[in-house]
């Protein structure tokens, strides 16, 4: 909020300078263009502030879509939560919300973790297919590395973070529908409104 206030102060001062520097009709053009540019560059800050308020207005509980944008209700979502002390530099300012067309439309700074939720998908029947397509939509910053063994698919790294290599006793853990998945991502059958969550657990 303090950054926004500082920006507001700067813009008001610059508007005042423009007022005396230009005469009509250029004065109006200069001031409106200045405000527009400032608003464009401060949009991520405003989004973060407003997303926290919006989050608190969402009161639904006990459903896997709880806390996710309502536009994704009834659709498939993949969430990746990075550990507090090993967050991804791309997503260290909160929980990003990325639509199925790749648009990063909201960052919730008030969320309990950092990372990204990519949602708005439908028609996927297999967990791995959804995971790979969703992370690809995020622009490659959430690249998934996995190994294929006789036990099935094992995800070793997401977004460049490999828990076992970092900590030894940790791994990317898969949750489906709010509970830990009993099968691996390669064998996970999805529902129409499945929410897949990846977070780092330890053993």
């Amino acid at each position: 909020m303090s950054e926004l206030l500082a920006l507001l102060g700067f813009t008001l001062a610059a508007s005042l300078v423009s007022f005396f520097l230009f005469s009509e009709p250029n004065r109006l053009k200069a001031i409106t263009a200045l405000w527009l540019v400032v608003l464009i560059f401060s949009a991520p800050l405003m989004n973060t502030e407003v997303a926290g308020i919006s989050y608190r207005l969402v009161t639904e509980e006990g459903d896997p879509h709880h806390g996710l944008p309502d536009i994704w209700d009834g659709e498939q979502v993949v969430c990746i939560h990075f550990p507090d002390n090993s967050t991804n530099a791309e997503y260290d300012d909160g929980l990003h919300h990325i639509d199925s067309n790749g648009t990063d439309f909201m960052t919730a700074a008030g969320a309990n973790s950092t990372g990204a939720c990519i949602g708005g998908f439908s028609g996927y029947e297999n967990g791995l297919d959804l995971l790979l397509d969703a992370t690809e939509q995020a622009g490659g910053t959430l690249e998934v590395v996995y190994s294929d063994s006789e036990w099935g698919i094992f995800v070793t790294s997401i977004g460049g973070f490999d828990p076992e290599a970092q900590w030894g006793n940790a791994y990317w853990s898969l949750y489906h529908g709010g509970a830990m998945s009993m099968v691996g991502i390669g064998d996970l059958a999805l529902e129409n409104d499945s929410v897949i969550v990846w977070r780092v657990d330890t053993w």
Partner: protein
Amino acid sequence: MPAYHVLDLSSSQMLMLNIALLALIGLGLLHGERRLEDGRRLALLGLLALFGIAGRVLLAPLPNIQPVTLIVLLAGMHLGARHSILLAAVIALGSNLILGHGIWTLYQALGWSLVGCLGALLASRQDSISTLLVAAALSGFLFDFVVSLSILHAVGPESLLPYLVAGLPYDLLHAAGNVTFAAWMGAPLAEMMRRHNLSELSLEAGEGVTSPA
């Protein structure tokens, strides 16, 4: 032959390219309009629709900033509600054929039509720049509210308020963009529309008013 398609432009370079293209299209609009005889309202509507579609598509990298709302508002003020509604529907459909067509197209056409009607209501104050600036800002919020209602097809009414709150920064950008477009393009666009408004021409020629829109 060199493979130019491998030249990847950054998003800011692409935006600069798009703004340059839009400026060229804007110049084309000005040039094309000057070659029209006075009173060619439908031809002008075609040029405005083309400019609106190009503006919306080319400025898509900017969040919720495009010239369509101002064009429709001015069309309502100077050409009447019916023509602004036609313009709104054509621009919504035409631009969404490129950006993505769906149920939201209907809401966008409705939103811009209401903006056009707002313009028509303010027709008597069409020479006031302050009225135009305020109406342009309000139109951003009005349009976004109407389009936001489309989520009620997918979720319950209790979800509307959080959705509207989350969209406030985008509403603000839309309003600011409209005001900026009004400051930069309002006068030439209004002048262009006045030249092709049949009822105004009739009044100037002393023939009396036939039909306002």
